[in-house]
């Protein structure tokens, strides 16, 4: 609020400077921003520091009464908590006079702190605004500091994003390392049995016995399941997505394109849970009915249902990305081909498609990494039993679905079962990271070619 007023204040000042005499060194708005920043930032910093240190200081002051009376730290803490509770009126125990007095003192201190906080912050605002105002009056530079400030804000934002990523990776790494201390890497990567439920039955008082898990955390079935379902999904998504992308880019008239493109993109906006129950409640049983009619044994939760619906989910990605790459193939190539007497489909097949291929491959890889990372559809439609199978009519499970299974319900940290989830997350992270890097590389290479 104060910031806004000082913005207008600063701008007005700038106008008056402008009208009285010389040229300004920056646009009037910059003077406004300058003043607003000076108004808000120092005050905000002081306020936050205050908020952080106030409780500690208050605690110290109150407990100083009890110092040298032979209390232990724990007891002191207890007294402090009691004091706080009493002053909030939430204390239920017996009120001793000791606590009574210290609670009064607490309230007292709090109110002093409160008012002095307001006073100090206001003083700081006034002081810094006055300082900034003086600098404006002497027509100092304002553009550079303001630009620097925005630069710093944006930098902090991106730093936060990067640090979060790094933090996530580290938490994954440490848990994963712990996991591999119990379960050998070899068993994890090459084992063919995945029954994390077995780890449930362990009595937590027992000592960890690694041999007990030797046949529990073999990740082959779920890796296989993951890639298998992703494969089915891509079998659906690539042809349909590509063809609709080509249609949109090359054949559709402006009008059709105007409506069809947003419609296809709506598909991308549907939450995956919705796809999930579409797969589990509509597609799954439907496949089962067809299968039984043909005399095949189909489980209601099948890899085919999950993969198929996942493919539908990925169609808009592939279609809209490949539409973009195809439209960005220069018109001059099309003209060249038409002028040679090529028909439209020949031109697409022989000139446009090869020219757009790297971009298309990039979009497909992005689609694959989405398929591998997809969770909800698999959990709902393909079941949770990690069968090692290549029969699309049976149920299989994926990395993501297994992480859900493991982490649903109460968790004990440091338990191999929980850590297995981290190990899975780590492998997933590595796989999708590689895919994304490759995809971005390919797309970038394609860009360079035409720029």
């Amino acid at each position, binding site marked *: 609020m104060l910031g806004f007023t000082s913005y207008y204040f600063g701008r007005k000042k700038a106008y008056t400077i402008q009208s009285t005499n010389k040229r300004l060194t920056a646009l009037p708005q910059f003077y406004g921003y300058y003043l607003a920043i000076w108004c808000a930032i120092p005050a905000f910093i002081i306020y936050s520091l205050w908020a952080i240190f106030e409780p500690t200081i208050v605690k110290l002051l109150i407990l100083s009464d009890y110092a040298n009376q032979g209390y232990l730290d724990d007891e002191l803490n207890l007294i402090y908590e009691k004091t706080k509770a009493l002053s909030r009126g939430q204390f239920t125990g017996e009120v001793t006079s000791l606590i009574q007095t210290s609670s009064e003192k607490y309230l007292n201190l709090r109110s002093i702190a409160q008012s002095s906080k307001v006073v100090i912050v206001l003083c700081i605002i006034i002081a810094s605004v006055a300082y900034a105002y003086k600098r404006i009056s002497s027509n100092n530079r304002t553009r550079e500091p303001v630009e620097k400030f925005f630069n710093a804000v944006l930098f902090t934002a991106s730093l936060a994003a990067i640090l979060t990523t790094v933090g996530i990776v580290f938490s994954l790494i440490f848990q994963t390392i712990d996991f591999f201390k119990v379960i050998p890497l070899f068993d994890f990567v090459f084992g063919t049995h995945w029954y994390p439920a077995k780890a449930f039955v362990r009595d937590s008082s027992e000592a960890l016995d690694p041999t007990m898990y030797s046949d529990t955390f073999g990740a082959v079935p779920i890796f296989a399941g993951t890639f298998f379902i992703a494969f089915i999904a891509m079998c659906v998504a690539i042809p349909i997505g590509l063809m609709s992308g080509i249609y949109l880019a090359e054949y559709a008239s402006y009008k059709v394109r105007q409506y069809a493109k947003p419609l296809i993109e709506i598909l991308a906006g549907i939450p995956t849970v919705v796809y999930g129950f579409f797969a589990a409640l509509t597609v799954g049983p439907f496949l089962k009915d067809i299968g039984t009619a043909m005399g095949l044994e189909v489980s209601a939760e099948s890899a085919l249902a999950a993969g198929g619906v996942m493919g539908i989910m990925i169609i808009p990605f592939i279609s809209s990305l490949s539409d973009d790459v195809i439209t960005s193939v220069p018109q001059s*190539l099309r003209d060249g081909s038409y002028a040679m007497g090529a028909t439209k489909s020949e031109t697409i097949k022989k000139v446009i498609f090869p020219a757009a291929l790297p971009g298309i491959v990039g979009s497909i890889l992005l689609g694959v990494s989405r398929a591998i990372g997809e969770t909800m559809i698999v959990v709902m439609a393909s079941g949770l039993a990690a069968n090692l199978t290549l029969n699309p009519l049976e149920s299989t499970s994926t990395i993501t679905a297994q992480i859900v299974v493991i982490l649903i319900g109460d968790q004990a940290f440091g338990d191999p079962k929980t850590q297995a989830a981290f190990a899975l997350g780590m492998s997933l992270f590595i796989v999708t990271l590689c895919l994304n890097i490759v995809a971005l590389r390919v797309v970038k290479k394609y860009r360079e*070619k035409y720029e």
Partner: protein
Amino acid sequence: MIKISAKNVDVFYGKKQALFNINLDIEENQVTALIGPSGCGKSTFLRCLNRMNDVIDICKVQGEIVINDFNINDKGCDVVRLREKIGMVFQKPNPFPKTLYENISYGPTIHGMAQSKQEMDEIVETSLKKAALWEEVKDRLHEPGTGLSGGQQQRLCIARAISVQPEVILMDEPCSALDPIATAQIEELIDELKKEHTIIIVTHSMAQAARVSQRTGFFHLGELIEHGSTDKIFKNPDNTKTQDYITGRFG
């Protein structure tokens, strides 16, 4: 002998008329230059001759364009055959992002002109030779065409155009992206090509028009103001607008 004859050609882009009642005869085995200020409709006219305006949705062509006694604006005209007979070279070199060999063999493959690999090799070689590019690229036929220099790329595009042995070659400012040396090479090439092909070239360079062409047409604001032998147009034009344009007083 008259190769192409345009009669009462009007062209519209949507509601906007770009060409007004053009009547122009093109002589066989000669170079015809089309000149005129920017936006006067030279490219539009050129694109009428191989129906490239079909590619633009909003473009509508009216009137008759007769090539070999056949009106190409007729319903029954086979555009694929037409474009086989009438090649085109564009302002900016536009080789396909394929190898040199594939660039040249593109047209012959589409039109089924080679029965064997050997025949195709021959077509590629003769086309490149005619385009005066063979010596420079014969060792790198299987490298991408986009890796050539601008002038080489343009000659590659010319080679691509002549690979299907067209009767007519349309060139839309083929030298505008090239340096004087490459331009001179292309001009020499045009002179050579006119023995076997009829050539129509759009250019902004008066000197180029005077150098390479036997006949010239001057366009202005969508109308064909004057046309005739290049000598006459440049030395003794009938129309004052032509005179002004050629002497550089406007445009």
